[in-house]
Structures are given as structure tokens and as C-alpha cells.
């Protein structure tokens, strides 16, 4: 069986060339032929194919997605902005302190969550599961989930601070607008250390212009840390024929011993 699989693989690589070889390489260990998605003649996913629709007539955002180019945003969420984010003075001071320590105190280093904004820039896939009243984001990195309620419920009156806040969504034509609040102030917005406070509100505008493309516009509105709201845009692509893999950060995290630090407050 193994020899058969190997021969089949070699044949595929030889015929398909480097581009398909890469796809094959990525797919080998978690491959399943995903049914009912638009494909090109060579079997690859048709990124420009039609967008599937929900029962309520709105676009489905469901699927496994991967950031097109996460790293710039991961280190610097403001990398596409002409100027840096509009820091409050204290926030700039905190940011510069964190930069001076090369990000050693990032809660990520100690397996704490990344928060809503940084999570969009993590270089690992995430899955969207959706029905008309609920959208669930399943993040491979750290095996974390988010719920976005799309059943017209209001925000809770007294949300308690949380790493991922409380999210509700509504449709504006074919764009899902997700508003989130109820955050704690313990996570960083990027690994350089742009901070946030419990006043943070995040507005994410999800759109799917074609089958294989997802766009997310993220507005950070936090008067506690910034003098004005600011917005960044990120793009994702569909990852076909594979699935999420678990990632358990707490298993054997060596960062504290590597850096000689105790966990940050």
C-alpha cells in the first residue's frame, strides 16, 4: 500500500510540475477530496468560482482559510498604514518599552491567547462554520474558537472582560459586519506590542468576493489607547482538501526557560 501510494505520488509530481507538486506536498498527510467545490480542469480549486449562498440568501463564509501574507501584520498590524496607529501617549510609551525588550513579554510567549486582532494575522489556517444565526471561527493555532452571533441579539449589558470579547454580526448587503466588545486588556494587537484597553471595540467586515477569496477589514476603536479609530485590511485564500490540525501550546512550551523569564502579568 505504501509503495503504491509512493508511486502514485511520484507520478503526480512528475506530471503536474512544481506548482501542483507544492499542493500535493501540502496535502499528503491530511488529504480528503472535498466535494461540491468549484474546480478547474486540473482538479485545483477555482478561486474565482461562484460564492456559495446560505439559506437566507447571504454569502456563506464557510471553509478553511489561510492568510495571504500574514507576517507583516503579525509583527506590525499597522504595516499597511501610511503612519503608525494614533497612540495615546501612555500607549506609545508601553509600545516602545515592549519593542525595546524585543517582545519578550508578549502573553503569546506563555501560551496565552492572541486576541481578536492578532488572530487574523496568525500564519495558520482557520475554519469558518456558519449557519444563518451563528458563525464559528475555529483557529488551528492554539486550538481556539470564537462565536459570532448573527441572530440579532444585542450585546450583553455588563460583559465581563474576556480575551476574545463578545461578538455579534449583521449583514450589510453581502458583507458580514461583526462588532465585538467586552475585552480584557491583557493581549497585544501584534507581536511588536501595540496595546489595547477594556474600552476596545473591534469591527470586522467580512466579504467573499469569489469562492476562494475572503477579505476582512478590521477597525480598532479604543479611545483608551488611541486618539482615533483606525482600520486595516487583510486577505485570505481558500485552503481546499485538507483540515485543521490540533496545536496545543501548553504541551511543552520552552519559552520561559529559553528567555529566563517568568510569565508576564
Amino acid at each position, binding site marked *: 500500500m*505504501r*509503495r503504491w501510494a*509512493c508511486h502514485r*505520488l*511520484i507520478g503526480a*509530481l512528475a506530471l503536474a510540475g*512544481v*506548482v501542483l*507538486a*507544492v499542493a*500535493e*506536498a*501540502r496535502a*499528503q*498527510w*491530511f488529504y480528503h477530496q472535498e466535494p461540491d467545490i468549484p474546480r478547474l480542469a486540473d482538479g485545483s480549486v477555482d478561486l474565482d468560482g461562484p460564492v456559495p449562498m446560505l439559506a437566507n440568501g447571504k454569502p456563506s463564509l464557510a471553509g478553511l482559510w*489561510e*492568510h495571504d*501574507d*500574514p*507576517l507583516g501584520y*503579525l*509583527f506590525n498590524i499597522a504595516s499597511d498604514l501610511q503612519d503608525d496607529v494614533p497612540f495615546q501617549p501612555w500607549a506609545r510609551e508601553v509600545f516602545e518599552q515592549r519593542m525595546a*525588550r*524585543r*517582545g*519578550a513579554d*508578549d502573553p*503569546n*510567549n506563555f*501560551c496565552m491567547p492572541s486576541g481578536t486582532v492578532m488572530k487574523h*494575522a*496568525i*500564519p*495558520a*489556517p482557520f475554519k469558518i462554520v456558519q449557519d444563518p444565526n451563528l458563525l464559528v471561527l475555529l483557529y*488551528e*493555532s*492554539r486550538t481556539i474558537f470564537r462565536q459570532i452571533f448573527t441572530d440579532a441579539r444585542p450585546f450583553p449589558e455588563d460583559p465581563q472582560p474576556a480575551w476574545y470579547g463578545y461578538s455579534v454580526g449583521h449583514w450589510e448587503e453581502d458583507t458580514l459586519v461583526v462588532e465585538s466588545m467586552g475585552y480584557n486588556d491583557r493581549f497585544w494587537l501584534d*507581536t511588536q506590542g501595540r496595546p489595547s484597553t477594556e474600552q476596545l471595540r473591534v469591527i470586522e467586515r467580512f466579504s467573499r468576493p469569489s469562492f476562494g477569496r475572503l477579505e476582512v477589514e478590521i477597525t480598532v476603536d479604543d479611545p483608551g489607547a488611541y486618539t482615533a479609530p483606525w482600520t486595516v485590511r487583510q486577505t485570505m485564500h481558500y485552503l481546499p482538501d*485538507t483540515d485543521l*490540525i*490540533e*496545536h*496545543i*501550546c*501548553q*504541551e*511543552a*512550551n*520552552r*519559552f520561559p526557560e*529559553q*528567555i*529566563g523569564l517568568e510569565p508576564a502579568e
Partner: protein
Amino acid sequence: MTWTRNSLVMLASIGSIAAGGSALAHHSFAAIYDTERSVTLSGVVTNVEWLNPHAHFFVDVETDDGAVENWDFELASPNGLMRLGWRRDSLKPGDEVTVVGLRARDGSPRANTRSVTLADGTEMFSGDGQQGGLL
């Protein structure tokens, strides 16, 4: 060297060209490793830890004075490595390897792995070591 491992290596190398992003990690890489201090070392694998959030493998390296120093090489996360075609037995104790990595700032025998070359010359890629750290 088994066929299976050679194919893994080939796949990992090909995959790294365009698919490396999926194995990248983030985190305070710069707090631990020095991107200006690349190191290339050869030796024998003594242990492999296929664990989250990052896999590690250890290599006995002979120093100039004949002593043996055991180096700790950090890899990407197992899920990221799997997406590049690695398996937990892609490296095994006893394998002769040459490793390119970025050395720890504190001068200890540790590095973040960029690539691993096996005795037959095939190369395995470990995501982008410059990004290092935790997913």
C-alpha cells in the same frame, strides 16, 4: 535511508518554496535568537521531541578541541511541519545531519532551525526560522 523518508524530504523541500507560510510561527523570535548569527553545524541526532508548541531535535556536535557538545535545534510546530510533509520520524536518533540555524542570543548551544540536510544530501525545511516561536 528509506524511500519513504526520501520522498518526505523531497516534498518538504518543494513545499518550502511556496508553502512555507503555513508552517511559519510567530512569537518573540528576536528575544531568543539572533537573526545576524547564522550557524551551520554537522553531527549526529541524539533525540527528537515531536511536541507542541515547537518540535526540537538534539545533535551531538564535535568541537574543535574534540569535545562533544549537544545542540538543541528548535523547529516549527508539529502542525506546521506536517503541512510541509514532515512526520515525527522524519529525523531519527543516529541520523547524520547538517543543520543551518540562527543562534541563541545567550550563546548557549541552541538555534532555530532553517534547514536540515541529511547524509544523502537531501534538505528538509523547517518553516521560516526567522519567525520562530509559537503559533
